[in-house]
């Protein structure tokens, strides 16, 4: 009784960066820090992918300034990815970037069996186009609703409210757990300090913190999303997947120093 000619497949995990490339990113080495952080995170991401063969980690990136465009248009296996530096200049067409991603999260082209995508929005400012329309378009897609949506604010000029809208409501903000507390994937009591949560914009005030957030998103979060554990519908504290603990430095503000302060 030979095995039938059916296509068994590991499940694609789409990881998409949405990178702010507005003119302000050129200041204080922010763009350079972002390029470096992403490039340095790739080996770790590839290792996580290797350890989870049931997931096929595919990376893409959108850049947005005056207009939004695909920086890496093809879903690229992380082990084959070579990061080409982003360049800063222009305004902040964040809404258009969300529209671009929304189009790619339709089914098709999204596969029936894909894992929840991971979307990482990185910005240092405020959108200059119709962000609300872009977000509405994005969240109309079921795959966007299922996605793990993370946001990193570079510096203190970033519009945290907009980034929080992208992430969605923070279940830790009301009732249940104290603000900022989320259960860790380890099952242990969460170690996040109040106010720090992956369900809120992660504020990077220097290159070191940015690198740690990017590393966390591209390894710990990818690892959690690669082997999703089934869970109870309605357990809102989990979001779409139980997120891993934030990197240790984020929990200790005294570590949050670096050569640049944005």
């Amino acid at each position, binding site marked *: *009784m030979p095995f039938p000619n*059916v296509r*068994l497949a590991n499940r694609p995990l789409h990881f998409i960066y949405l990178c702010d490339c507005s003119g302000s990113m050129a200041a204080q080495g922010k763009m350079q820090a972002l390029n470096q952080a992403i490039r340095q995170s790739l080996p770790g991401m590839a290792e996580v992918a290797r350890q989870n063969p049931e997931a096929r980690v595919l990376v893409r990136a959108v850049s947005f300034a005056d207009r939004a465009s695909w920086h890496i248009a093809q879903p690229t296996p992380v082990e084959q990815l070579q990061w080409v530096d982003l360049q800063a200049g222009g305004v902040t067409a964040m809404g258009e970037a969300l529209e671009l991603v929304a189009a790619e999260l339709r089914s098709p082209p999204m596969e029936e069996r894909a894992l929840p995508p991971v979307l990482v929005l990185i910005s240092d400012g405020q959108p200059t186009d119709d962000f609300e329309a872009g977000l509405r378009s994005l969240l109309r897609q079921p795959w966007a609703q299922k996605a793990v949506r993370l946001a990193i604010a570079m510096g203190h000029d970033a519009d945290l409210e907009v980034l929080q809208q992208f992430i969605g409501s923070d279940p830790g903000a009301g009732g249940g757990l104290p603000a900022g507390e989320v259960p860790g994937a380890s*099952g242990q009591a969460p170690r996040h300090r109040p106010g720090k949560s992956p369900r809120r914009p992660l504020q990077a005030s220097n290159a070191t913190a940015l690198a740690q957030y990017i590393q966390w998103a591209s390894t710990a979060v990818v690892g959690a999303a690669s082997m999703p554990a089934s869970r*109870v519908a309605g*357990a809102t504290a989990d979001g779409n997947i139980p997120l891993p603990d934030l990197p240790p430095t984020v929990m200790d503000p005294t570590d949050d120093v670096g050569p640049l302060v944005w």
Partner: protein
Amino acid sequence: MVSSGASPAPTAALHCSRIGAAHRRQGRPCQDFSLSHRCHNAAGEPVLVLAVADGHGGARYRRSERGSRLACELAIAEVERAMGPRATDEQRQAGQGAIAADSADLAHWRRWLAQELPEAIHRLWLEAIAADWERDPEGADPCRPDPYSLATTSPAAVAEAPEGGCAEGFSPLSYGTTLGLVVIGPRWWGHTGLGDWDLVRVEAAGGGASLISEEPAELAAGEATCSLCQRQAARLFAPRSGLYPRREGEAFALVLSSDGIRKSCATDADFLALAAHLAATPAGESELLESALDQISREGSGDDVSVAIAQLGVAPPDRAQNQDRQIQPSQAAAAPEPPGSGHWRGRYPVLLLALGAAVALGLALPRLVPSSRFTDQDPPAAPTPATIPPPTPGPSPAELPLELQARLRRSIAQLCASPASIRASLKQRKSQSAGLATGRLQARQLQRNAATDPLGALLGTAFLAREPQPTLRPLQALGACPELEAALAATWPAGPADRRMGPLPAHAGPAGSSRPTAPPP
């Protein structure tokens, strides 16, 4: 044609659960569980029960492998108790459909599957996990947990309850699991459960495979699923419940599987083909099934994988040879045209993949022997033609796109949940009904709009089912209750605007029930 007596007993059943490749690598236990079990109803007729449960994988569901095992065992025990001779006279007199021995009252059994059985399973499961915790508590402060108080707490609140102490340490969440259940009696078969399991029906003789039940997307998102540990768990069974009369001469297999199998397949067409392959596993070859499941997990999702399979209406080969001579002319004359006939043929090429795989089932079914796990319990098989007859006429639901099937099933289930309001619901669609009859509306366009107008899609499908041979069989196979069939049959009476279509046949007519009633047990 509905069986006027008992349909042939299921001739084979098998089940298997295998630890997923990822779980094995991570040193985690298999959190799936599956069972198949034969018992008898109060009349002594054979009943087959399949169960598959998938314990949640998150860290907080740390006893989910116990939860899934208990769910399967308790569900099967409850089915056996409710259908079997151990039911009390008082319960019978109370008119509980669950107690009557395979009653002809299909509506009664439908309600049992959707409401009464789920409530019993949920209650028993909560009691069992509380007892399990009491026997084997975590932490140093064991005390008696109260499963009911926790079960009335919202899942999110339970999930977020702090650790430590007895009341805080025990939570139904720790045992969280899905549950899929199939009950096969002599005159009907049905399914119920909650969570992300799948149920596929594979026709014999290359008749195709179709997805009978899947978790509605609106009930769960992403990797989330409905669970027995939820407060409202008993109510979550209804959307996954369905009941179908067994018909004379039918030969098909049912494949109940945990989500790890479907998620290992590139597409739904691959999943259906794989289900057809698994359905053809010879019952005595459990190693073949284990090997196949291991390969599925290894090359696919990495998740635990479970399957429970029943083959219906097929006699063991030794009996089949003797029964060749028993085929009566009336049976041959009643043999309907093969599936895929008429205007449905070739409309949905994606399902042809599954048809091809189902041929393997057709070839393999005659080789089936009673399940090795239940051989000595098998009741005698009823007389069955050795040559598997082709399915009954009209377009098969297998020929409808999967998404449309799912939406039709949900729409049908909603309508049949309130039979008294069916006609009122259809009356509101007089414009669509008239449009179909006059040609102003295209039935296939209504089917394509199923996502936004499932009732319109149902009307379109019912309308198409009247051509070229008037029959509502596709809707019957999708779980339509007699009241719905009757109402649909009355929707397009033959008239000047519809001269080319005669009235619907008597068996689908509006006389209360479209199906001959089964005899009392």
